[in-house]
């Protein structure tokens, strides 16, 4: 599976994780080119439906990144994220999609290195899991 190049989607909140991704860029931290960021205002505005849609149509992995607990720009938005996505993982497991294809993590605006680490780890993990089987079903 060495030539498998996963396609990954990441939802980043405007205030922390998107800014952390920007910082990684400014710091020229290198990472695999598989992750495509969608900017949202808060991680808690990400509907689980987006994750299900992406994974059911063949995207290999989805990241949801927010502010650290306690640092949410919208006070408690990420508390909802923290509850919502483990539940989404459970649903994935129940319908036979490997729940490791969805990862929730916290990256602050000051954590360019953490962003690099999360991206690098997640891409490696997805490479290990191999292509999303639903990709074949769809096409």
């Amino acid at each position, binding site marked *: 599976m060495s030539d498998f190049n996963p396609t990954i989607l990441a939802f980043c909140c405007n*205030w922390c994780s998107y800014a952390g991704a*920007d910082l*990684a860029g400014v710091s020229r*931290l290198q990472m695999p*080119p598989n992750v495509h960021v969608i900017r949202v*205002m808060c991680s808690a505005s990400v509907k*689980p439906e987006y994750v299900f849609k992406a994974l059911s149509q063949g995207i290999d992995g989805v990241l949801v990144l927010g502010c650290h607990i306690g*640092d949410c720009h919208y006070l408690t938005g990420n508390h909802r994220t923290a509850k*919502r996505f483990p539940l989404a993982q459970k649903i994935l497991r129940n319908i036979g999609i490997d729940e490791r294809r969805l990862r929730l993590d916290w990256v602050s605006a000051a954590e360019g290195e953490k962003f690099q680490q999360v991206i690098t780890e997640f891409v490696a993990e997805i490479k290990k899991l191999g292509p999303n089987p639903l990709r074949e079903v769809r096409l």
Partner: protein
Amino acid sequence: MLMPRIGVFICHCGHNIASVVDVEKVVEFARGLPNVAFASHNLYSCSEEGLGAIRKSIEDNKLDRVVVAACTPRTHEPLFRRNCERAGVNKYLFEFVNIREHCSWIHAKEPEAATRKAMNLVAMGVAKAGLLEPQSEGESNVIPAALVIGGGIAGLAAASSLVSQGIETHLVEKQAALGGMLNEIPVVGPEMIESKDLIENYKRALECSPKAHVHLSSRVSSLSGFIGNFEATIQGGRCDEKVKVGAIIVATGGREFVPNGEYGYGSLPGVMTQLELERRLARGEIPKKVVMIQCVGSRQPGRELCSRVCCNASIKNAIRILDADPNAEASILHRDIMSYGTAAERAYKDASEKGAKFYRYGLEKIPSVKRKNGGLSVEFYDETLDELVALDADTVVLSTPILPVEDVKEIAKMLKVPVDKYGFFLEAHVKLRPVEFATEGIFICGSARWPSSVSECIAQGLAAAAKASIPIREGKVVIEPITAYSDPEKCIACGNCVLACPYEAIEIVLMDGKRKARVNEAKCKGCGNCVAACHNDAMEQKGFDTRQLAAMIDALIKNALEVSQ
């Protein structure tokens, strides 16, 4: 319905993007995307030349939506939006694609993969752009008054500045007197200014003005509202007072960390904190042999921060002791001396010349304080000498950090602003938006932000006052159209959105006799929490609506999965 005519502009950003991403290839790709009427590239899109070229393309090609693939929206979006507006395109029909921070800079050694990713990102941006809708910015009035919480030197500086600008200002101080921590520090270094004079200087500005309302022995017990229109309850001696203000400055300051018995504090006589030494010096009690230990309770695992002011406080007090009694001995055990800037570094040199001794210790072998012959002895491992040293002392001074005030968490909760792991308030951006909270209309200054010297507190107080006065003087604030709205057709008034909203911006109201959710746009901050909480897809957020995000996902699936097959 007319098909959108999207213009796509790929930026070289000099070499920043173009040295990795094949810009021309991305332009070619963009031309083939749905609804793209025009695609081109610019050397620097943000230059006047680049902006002019975009405007000309909009006119020549009758474009009605614009996508720029360049750097980050966090810095450049306002510029490109304004540019669209100049060319007659609603500024919210603009979409930004980040192919620098999120692509060329982080995939510098993989030009082909970076080019492919840039194409995917552009396709996603174009997909969203096609579904954007023109928006108009709302406006709301600003109450021409300000609230300053905390009457220490930072709050005093802020309040006196606001008052001098003719702005009605409420200054709330929990103690019975203004001045805060500075009341306990008689002299401020390195210039050796009398604190009394400093406090008086700012107090006088308040006393002379009918615009100033000083609330002593008071606290802000509740707060509601948003920029331009806050309502605070000030709890004072006899009765509560409600005030309405347009902006708020937080200057709640800090407190000295009191050691938990370290170095014999509390058990050995003569062991005290730097602030306790200040009180003794104020009473004219000059120690004969003083040893000061720096970084007690800071710069160590669990509390990594440097309090910044304590090195200079120790140097100042060593000078005061040695000036008062040239035969006295003053030793400072430090881990690094942080005498930043010119004046403080001069004071450091001064102190050495007056006879103060500086020794460096490490965290692995911290000093110990013992009783000896009715006095004290401090034993430590000197890193420079590489040996154990023992110093006799009658006074051991522990330099402890400034920590946030005890009730900081409640204050943060009331203001709905974030604090860091130590409890210091987090400003919006250290460089782009200093002294501002991300929450508009609330500002921060002084040691509540991080440990600050007196001159820094004053400068920050004045800066916060200057920023707070902007909306007050403008009289109006713009509401960014990223607010949520509810579709009454779909809403079943379950109230999930009401619970999800951190700002109490959503109410269930009667519409044509039916209960429906309604968003108060002036209170909505555009977090979108209600959108994901809505079970009936009734809630949407402007600029981030469900169709737009779904289209982005579709574009990624189409371009990354289907094309690569």
